[in-house]
């Protein structure tokens, strides 16, 4: 596996559980939002993802926000979707990111624009997530663009992608697809948020059996539920998320004012359970517009303080 200056890669290689989280940029030019959210979580995570116009809603760009994090001395993970940019723009942004010392990229295809605030726009999809990973690997390991141009100063990217064990048609295909991404150069994945433990464990077993966990670090996705309404919404409305009825029942079983606390308890229990699952290398905590809860989750699961590595 190609070694990069990525602190996330170092943490994974150290054998400690890695912890990542994310910040969603604002729908305005207010860069302070990024700083504020990052400050809430920075001491509790090894790297911070910045989402790229998530759910196809136009926001302050991921690259600019990642540069801001880098200038704050933090470790950003540049999320990049292929929906909005062709291979010229994607490679150009990767070179730009690398010029600021950004060393982590998450290669995504992106939600269809149908979900967002510009449903009438044209999409691009010149590449898909797997092809974006191949492209980054070529740029990094061969010093070459897709067009054939060769260059000296290469982007030192730790290459990541998403994995969703819960989407269709079945968990075997989902593991096979992760295998495809790994073959394309993906070194770490952050999974879709996990609520169905049985399905997730089956997925992990297949990944271990296929040898994927040797080549690729799997970070388990955790999203704490704020209330039963959010749980129901995710169960019914969000494609690719599997919320078992037992979780709805549990959230509904506590008084409204206690539901947020119950959601955090559930996230903590999930992490504790997942620590025991072979192949898990860390956790990706997506506390959507609830960043202030990340420290509590990290502390309660014994993942704080974050280990300090040499040069980290």
């Amino acid at each position, binding site marked *: 596996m190609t070694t990069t200056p990525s602190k996330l890669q170092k943490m994974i290689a150290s054998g400690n559980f890695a912890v990542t989280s994310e910040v969603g940029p604002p729908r305005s030019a207010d860069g302070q939002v990024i700083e504020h959210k990052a400050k809430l979580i920075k001491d509790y995570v090894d790297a911070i993802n910045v989402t790229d116009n998530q759910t196809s809603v136009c926001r302050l760009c991921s690259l600019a926000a990642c540069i801001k994090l880098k200038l704050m001395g933090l470790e950003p993970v540049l999320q990049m979707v292929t*929906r909005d940019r062709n*291979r010229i723009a994607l490679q150009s942004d990767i070179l730009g990111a690398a010029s600021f010392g950004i060393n982590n990229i998450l290669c995504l*295809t*992106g*939600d*269809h624009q*149908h*979900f967002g605030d510009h449903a009438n726009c044209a*999409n691009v*999809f*010149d*590449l*898909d*997530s*797997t*092809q974006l990973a*191949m*492209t980054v690997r070529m740029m990094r390991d061969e010093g070459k663009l*897709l067009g054939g141009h060769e260059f000296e100063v290469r982007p030192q990217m730790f290459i990541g992608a*998403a*994995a*969703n064990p819960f*989407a*269709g*048609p079945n968990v075997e*295909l989902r593991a*096979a*697809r992760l*295998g*495809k*991404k790994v*073959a*394309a150069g993906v070194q770490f994945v952050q999974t*879709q948020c996990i609520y169905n433990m049985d399905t997730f464990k089956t997925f992990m077993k297949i990944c271990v059996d296929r040898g994927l966990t040797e080549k690729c670090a799997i970070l388990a996705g955790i999203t704490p539920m704020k209330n039963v309404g959010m749980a129901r919404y995710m169960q019914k409305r969000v*494609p*690719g998320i599997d919320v078992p009825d037992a979780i709805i029942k549990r959230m509904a079983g506590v008084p409204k004012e206690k539901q947020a606390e119950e959601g955090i308890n559930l996230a903590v229990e999930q992490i504790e359970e997942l620590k025991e699952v072979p192949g898990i290398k860390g956790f990706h905590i997506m506390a959507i517009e609830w960043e202030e809860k990340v420290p509590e989750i990290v502390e309660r699961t014994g993942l704080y303080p974050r280990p300090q590595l040499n040069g980290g």
Partner: protein
Amino acid sequence: MIKAVPKPLEEIIGRVQDSNKVLIAGCDGCVTVCEAGGMKEAKILASALRLYYTQAGKQAQVDETSLTRQCEKEYLAQLSDKIDGYDAVVSLACGVGVQYLAEMYDNKIVYPGVDTCFLGVNEERGLYSERCQACGKCILADTGGVCPIARCSKRMLNGPCGGSEAGKCEINPDIPCGWQLIYERLKTLGQLDRFEKPVEPKDWKTSRDGGPRKIVREDLRI
């Protein structure tokens, strides 16, 4: 075949309301099959326009005809002796036919009477769905005969995406997930190994991205 739907009558009226002599030109090709622009539809539209002119108290003549195909000069030439007598032509052919008609009779106002939608199949009468985006480099041999470019909403070549659920696409539960169809077909054919190999970035030059396309078949040209 090319699939199209009739434009709303109000839109066509908005175009021809000030014309005195209108020719509705149907096409006996694809648009006849999908019942959007053949002789039958030309007659229906002509009747509707006559009714409009009468009710609006306007004197106007509306005639209808249909050509074997509007994408060939030989058939378009059949209009040459009468087209000068009309202020405007409403072509019910696909966008190809509308343009070729306008190209051949360059001093004539030609309005489209249908919205051209896609290359697709007749699933049932009145139910058509897309199958091909004419990318110019067919990959169906590798994808179990199901096209991910036409049938995946994100035209992914390494799908399915994480939004595929219960065999349906994330953008609409009425749309089958193209990659699930590919997976199932490959499984049936015993070719799942094809799924495991990452597909390289596609060369889109042969698609629309290469600019307006042209085929020159020297073997067919005299």
